[in-house]
């Protein structure tokens, strides 16, 4: 029995639109731990998630999860999956307890078993004190937790979470990470985000999606090796006479300049910038830099030259 998620040439074209929301996406990863799919808005993350969660038919291509065909055996797969869709909201006239309980009933649990599991999962997410407050009274972060509590309480061993932390404040988001990494220990968690630090923190494997294409996939270390530079410098503007001998200069839509380079060159540039009094930061290459670099490389290869803006918030 294969314990893998395999996609083969998955393509999606919506209705009579011409653009491909997904463009021949193929990959194969072990179906365990946390997989984080990163990409800008509109890159096709939700489309891929909805196809894999049997909510949307692909235009062509195929996918299997643990040997179950997503397109041909949806019933069989639905026994094992659970999802929190992007922009899902807990129903305002219900309480967290009622929300989790009813979800479990939908999964076919008996009332007594559903009650037991609901209490357990609400406790686990520290929602115990709010269990019987109406959802509409809860903060954005707590509302999101209620939804995660539903899938957490279920028996599903494949969990899809589509941008679960978008819109949360930085502190709530960090709290959320503990919950997510907890889920990922026991079940295969397929997570999407456009926060790169989130992927860095949580992911066992990372996929980068841009304009419907999967431009890279691998562990953080593997992705690091796609790029031969190890330092990233950021400066608010680029001095006209600055020369970069061994490195890559990336300019974002915001005018910020990013230089990816090797150690020796980084120190040389630093000295030069200090001399001229230009302010800058220097850091080891992060996922953010890798994303920036790979996405630009891909769009240059494609020849559309669309400059990408800041990839982070």
């Amino acid at each position, binding site marked *: *029995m294969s*314990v893998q998620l395999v996609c083969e040439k998955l393509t999606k074209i919506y209705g009579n639109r011409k653009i491909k929301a997904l463009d021949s996406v193929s990959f194969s990863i072990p*179906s*365990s731990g946390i997989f984080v799919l990163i990409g800008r808005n509109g890159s096709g993350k939700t489309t891929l998630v*909805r196809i894999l*969660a*049997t*909510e*949307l*038919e692909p235009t062509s291509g195929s996918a299997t999860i*643990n040997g179950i065909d997503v397109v041909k055996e*949806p*019933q069989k797969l*639905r*026994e094992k*999956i*659970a*999802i*929190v*869709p*992007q*922009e*899902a*909201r*807990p*129903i305002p*006239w*219900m*309480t967290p307890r*009622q929300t989790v*309980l*009813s*979800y*479990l*009933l*939908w*999964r*076919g*649990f*008996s*009332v007594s*078993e*559903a009650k037991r599991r609901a209490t357990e999962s609400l406790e686990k997410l520290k929602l115990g004190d709010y269990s019987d407050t*109406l959802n509409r009274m809860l903060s954005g972060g707590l509302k999101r937790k209620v939804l995660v509590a*539903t899938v957490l309480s*279920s*028996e599903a*061993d494949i969990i*899809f979470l589509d941008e679960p932390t978008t819109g949360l404040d930085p502190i709530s988001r960090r709290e959320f990470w503990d919950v997510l990494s907890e889920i990922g220990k026991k*079940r*295969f968690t397929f997570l999407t985000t456009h926060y790169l630090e989130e992927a860095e923190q949580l992911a066992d494997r990372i996929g980068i999606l841009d304009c419907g294409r999967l431009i890279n996939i691998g562990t953080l270390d593997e992705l690091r090796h796609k790029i031969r530079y190890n330092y990233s410098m950021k400066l608010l503007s680029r001095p006209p006479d600055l020369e970069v001998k061994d490195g890559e200069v990336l300019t974002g839509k915001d005018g910020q300049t990013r230089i990816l380079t090797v150690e020796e060159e980084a120190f040389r540039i630093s000295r030069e910038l200090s001399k001229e009094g230009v302010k800058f930061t220097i850091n080891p290459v992060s996922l953010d830099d890798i994303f920036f670099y790979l996405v630009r490389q891909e769009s240059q290869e494609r020849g559309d030259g669309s400059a990408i803006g800041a990839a982070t918030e």
Partner: protein
Amino acid sequence: MEVPLEQRPNRSRFSQILAAVLVNAIYEMRNYPVVLVNTVLSPLSFLILIVFVSQGSLLGVAIEGGLIMSMFSSGIGLQSDLSHLKNDFKLQDMVVSSPTGWQTYMLGIAISEIVYSLPALTVLAILAYYYLTLSFAGVIELLAVLLLMFLASMAIGFTLSTFSSDIVQSFAFSRLISTLFSAVPPVYYPITYIPMPFRYLAYLSPTTYAAELAQDIAGYIKLSTTMVAIDWLILIAVAVGLFMVARSKARWREV
């Protein structure tokens, strides 16, 4: 990773239907009790109006009208509730990606609409018990008319919900449909009250046929056997026909 089959829960269809009834009816009534008052008042308000205007002579007809309108708006309610749960809360997506199939989901939501109307139906049933004179067969026939009315309007609601435009999904639209089909046609009074050329307009609404049958059953009007047969046939045809349209159009998994 793989959990052996015997450890999987024995999924209960009853639970799956109960989930829909709780979410779409019980919890809302329990957590917002004012909803209860509203569901009771809306079919009663018209009834009271008609009874006053007719100085009591149309009481029986208006009670039947209230019953028909309750069943009709329960069915039509399916349309706005399905859209609401799907688009605003993404609940339908969560259910699609779960072991609940579409038949169970729809059945659950349909039952929840009836449950939502139970307070009003109870009040109307009590009124009917005191003010309508019906034989046992008449009671059965009236229940059949009401059930058919519910199925027909559910088919309309279901069909409408498969059109995914913003207008169709708006709350105002479902109110409009409700008004067109229940307040304008002669649900609360005999069709003979409508002057002649306009009477044909009334026959565009399925509620007219249900009302005609109900009024005949309780003896407020006298229909020929042919007319009775035609009325039944039309109600059945609307229900069956629209269910077939909805079935072919509705998609559980989107394309």
